[in-house]
């Protein structure tokens, strides 16, 4: 049953730039807004093979573009979008095509077809507890997307990595101040990219990244320039593009 005055469902929900950390979901605004203009959208995700839809954003987003984070690597997801106005929330859009939360390189490897696992002989080393190289600083930190509701950062791994996998901490600083705050206070991230929410609209920030491994946390990268969190959908080129 249609509720009077609510928007019509959004159209053409698509997924872009899928990787193991996030999937960018886009859609088109419905032709009919309903009794009042659209205030924003809710994005829902469902893991393929389950029946449960989970709402991705607590606060409605205004742009028809949203990076969905918190996905489990290797699992498949479908997405749908609902539009909101003063009268209420629309019916959900048609669902997107299924997309796997996986890095493109891993996806290519998977296409070659299944093969049983093989484990090599286990190599052993005794290490002195004092040995442990803290990785150097990451480079080329850039903002690849900046909108009112989120900012996406990307960077290059450090040259000096230590001998383990490197992980990252992201820090933000409100322009004009000297106080850097860690954004991912819990787990460090494994991939050289990060999507951030909860930035104050209209404020300007700079960002920087540190590497860490079991030996400790490294020096901070060069900070990005000031990025204003605002109405402009700013899409500079990603590094290497």
């Amino acid at each position, binding site marked *: 049953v249609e509720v009077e005055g609510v928007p019509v469902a959004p159209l053409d929900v698509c997924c872009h730039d899928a990787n193991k950390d996030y999937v960018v979901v886009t859609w088109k605004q419905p032709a009919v807004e309903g009794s009042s203009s659209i205030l924003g959208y809710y994005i829902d995700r469902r893991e393929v093979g389950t029946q449960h839809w989970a709402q991705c954003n607590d606060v409605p987003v205004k742009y028809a573009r949203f990076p969905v984070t918190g996905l489990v690597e290797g699992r498949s997801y479908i997405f749908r979008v609902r539009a909101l106005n003063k009268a209420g929330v629309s019916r959900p859009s048609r669902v997107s095509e299924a997309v796997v939360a996986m890095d493109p390189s891993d996806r290519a490897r998977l296409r070659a077809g299944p093969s049983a*696992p093989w484990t090599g002989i286990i190599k*052993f080393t005794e290490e002195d507890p004092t040995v442990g190289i803290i990785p150097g600083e990451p480079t080329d930190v850039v903002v690849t997307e900046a909108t009112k509701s989120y900012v996406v950062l990307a960077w290059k791994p450090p040259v000096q990595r230590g001998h383990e996998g490197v992980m990252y901490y992201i820090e933000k600083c409100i322009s004009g101040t000297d106080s850097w705050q860690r954004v991912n206070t819990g787990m460090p991230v494994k991939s050289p990219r990060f999507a951030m929410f909860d930035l104050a609209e209209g404020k300007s920030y700079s960002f920087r990244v540190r590497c860490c491994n*079991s030996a400790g946390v490294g020096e901070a990268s060069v900070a990005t320039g000031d990025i204003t969190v605002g109405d402009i959908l700013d899409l500079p080129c990603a590094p290497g593009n």
Partner: protein
Amino acid sequence: VKMFAVTEGKHAKFRCFVTGKPKPEIIWRKDGKLILSGRRYLLYEDREGYFTLKVLYCKQKDNGVYVCAASNTAGQTLSAVHLSVKEPPVRFK
């Protein structure tokens, strides 16, 4: 099973290369018990793609058989080694 020895107080690092499609899920076990990442155990995939287990500051209780088990939809396999922890050399004041 291959035997290795580590001096008490040192770190023991085990590295195992794993192949398979889809990418296998890797678990490490010690004497049959699942090893979880924590203060004394580090689990990670290193830059060369080896699945790595590091046992920090080895103690006598770390003696035992360590197994790296890999499984995916196509099957499963494992590799095992035995670790013994040596007494540290006696230190004189």
